[in-house]
């Protein structure tokens, strides 16, 4: 199995076939992660460079774990300790790193489009680990893997995404990925956190939380950031929690076997009540472990490791 695309920049441009290929492969990778010795030689001699212009502990560790489990060499580049501080452009940074013969760049950047931009200037594969407010395709894939594990399918499900849609790359990747695999997507939030022309996307829009999650199979709760309050997009975290925070009471509106997801890190008591975060419907921790599996699958598929190396 291989992907039809060289880079993984977003789910908007990823075919259903490629997505399913990643999910299937990730399923196999989960098996490796459950072994007592979590290491296979598949990507020995391959180099993965994580290029993080934005702080992110969990995504970075997830990629590093994925690469190391497959025996790839991992090098980390972080903007805070690099030439970026000296005013180097993104193009020059990538040309420099590219000259060091990386096989894969994993890039996280605060600018929308940064991953695509990087892909123009390197022969290496580029995986978007989150670019501004554009996409976070590996998050979208791990969310779909988690859903599929529990529901056995994506097609025909109804998934509500609750919160700050405007500023969320997770929401965008979920919208493209889920709808392409046949799910219905609802967006729930105040108008101030919904992007322009949102109704032209393949989604249904709700302003009322209970109405929005009614009979949903999955509720994906987004992190709300205090800086949005400071930008005047909602009056207080208190009022946000009252109107859009997912609590067990509201959750009764959803299907009895609902899954509650959150890309993390969570603000308990704001967008998600503690008892929901820790409750029986929450699959938040599983999302994290699925993240490693999905990233292993992508590295493996992009670098074309031989099949028998994954097998025992």
């Amino acid at each position: 199995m291989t992907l039809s695309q060289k880079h993984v920049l977003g789910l908007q441009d990823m075919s259903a076939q490629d997505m399913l290929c990643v999910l299937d492969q990730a399923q196999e990778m989960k098996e490796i992660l459950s072994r007592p010795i979590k290491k296979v030689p598949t990507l020995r001699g391959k180099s993965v460079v994580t290029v993080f212009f934005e702080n992110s502990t969990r995504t970075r560790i997830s990629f590093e774990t994925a690469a190391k489990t497959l025996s790839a060499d991992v090098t980390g580049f972080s903007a805070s300790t690099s030439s970026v501080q000296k005013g180097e452009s993104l193009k020059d940074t990538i040309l420099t790193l590219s000259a060091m013969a990386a096989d894969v760049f994993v890039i996280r950047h605060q600018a929308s489009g940064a991953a695509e931009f990087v892909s123009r200037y390197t022969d290496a594969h580029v995986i978007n680990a989150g670019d501004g407010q554009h996409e976070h395709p590996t998050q979208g894939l791990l969310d779909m893997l988690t859903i599929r594990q529990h529901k056995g399918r994506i097609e025909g499900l109804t998934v509500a995404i609750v919160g700050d849609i405007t500023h969320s790359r997770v929401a965008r990747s979920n919208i493209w990925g889920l709808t392409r695999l046949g799910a219905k997507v609802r967006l729930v939030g105040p108008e101030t956190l919904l992007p322009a022309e949102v109704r032209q996307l393949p989604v249904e829009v709700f302003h009322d939380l209970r109405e929005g999650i009614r009979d949903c199979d999955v509720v994906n709760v987004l992190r709300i950031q205090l800086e949005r309050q400071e930008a005047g997009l909602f009056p207080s975290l208190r009022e946000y929690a009252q109107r859009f925070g997912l609590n067990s009471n509201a959750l009764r509106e959803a299907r009895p076997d609902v899954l509650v997801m959150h890309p993390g890190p969570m603000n308990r008591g704001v967008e998600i009540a503690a008892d929901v975060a820790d409750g029986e419907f929450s699959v938040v921790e599983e999302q994290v472990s699925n993240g490693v599996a999905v990233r292993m699958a992508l590295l493996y598929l992009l670098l074309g490791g031989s099949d028998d190396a994954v097998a025992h």
Partner: protein
Amino acid sequence: MRLLISGGRIIDPASSFDGVGDVLVEDGVIAFCGERLPEEMKSGEVRLYDASGLVVTPGLIDMHVHLREPGQEYKETLETGGMAAAAGGFTSVVPMPNTVPAVDNRATVEYVVRRAKETSPVRVWPTVAATKGNANEEMSEIADCKAAGAIAVTDDAFPLQSAEMTRRVMEYCRTFDLPLLTHCEDKSMTKGAVMNEGLSATVLGLKGMPKAAEDLQVSRNIELAQMTGCRLHILHISSRRSIQMVREAKARGVRVSCETCPQYFSLDDAICLGYNTLAKCSPPIRTRDDIEAVKEGLADATIDAIATDHAPHAAHEKECEFQTAAFGMIGLETALGLTVSKLVDTGVISLSEAVRKMSTAPAEILGLPLGRLSVQSPADITVFDPSEEWTVDPELFQSKSRNTPFAGWRLRGRAVTTIVAGRVVYGEVRSAEKTTA
């Protein structure tokens, strides 16, 4: 030396002349313009320009360019910008004052005037920043700058935010009989925004500028122009609602004019997909509906002029993240082709109307003694071929910069000869031969 441009289709909107005829240039001024040069004027040595199949018009005037001198000569200079203008058929350009330092005092105006005289092949008419350093705090020495050669006041690139400051600038402009050219944008609505607000921006995850940010200031500036009696000119109008407000204001007699640019009738915001920084400009490329509105406004003369907002930037200022990229695109060398291809060939406006919007109207708005082919006026003349097909190749541009989204476009209409004060500054005199009667 005399030059007889003969056999071309002469379009002189000021006199409503549109027909085949002769233009005689003598000592830098127009000596004759009409159907047929009288025999008695043919005596003496005359250089003959066979303009058959070509269009002969008053020199085009681009009332909105950025030539980057002083301060950012790596992007453009008065010389290279002037060469680009000449190559695009323009005989006059009006640079905006957002240079480094800003053109906000007599010394800088004088510098621009002098450098232009030394280096530019076309006429350069400076403007002065409305406020010192474009800081939106104190008015510039507008009267002193006028005395040094500034022909208008503007807040381009640094839109006046305070209504009170705008009112006072307008009153002061009126006092010294200068037009105020305004860049209409409520900055409180565009902080961090990099393209038009809409579906494309939503998909790209980029912050959008709502049309209301433009519309609010168009509305406010029209109100203040009516109140103060200032001559208001709205730069680069791009939104349907703004155009409608100008239409209504004109109908009730407000002294307001406006311009648009080829990018606003040629592109919609889907051009930004793929993070195409070459299409990043301010105001942003809008929607298909706005393109239609711009065309309607051009057709019913709500939009008086076509300018370029020629905004040169170095390659590295565009080869970067979209949100970091500089705003603006160059336009001097594509404006005529886009106007002919997108407006004239498609029947939106006549060729004569196009010439009016690119020459006669800018001259009238700015009070320049140009934009017409009447006898004794300066011999600023553009000769162009309205049917020449060509492919936009930025590598062949005279401009120092290459930032155009139109690379590879097939266009019709291109300047053949640009004449300033009787002197050929671009192109050649076709079928040149000396005749002695």
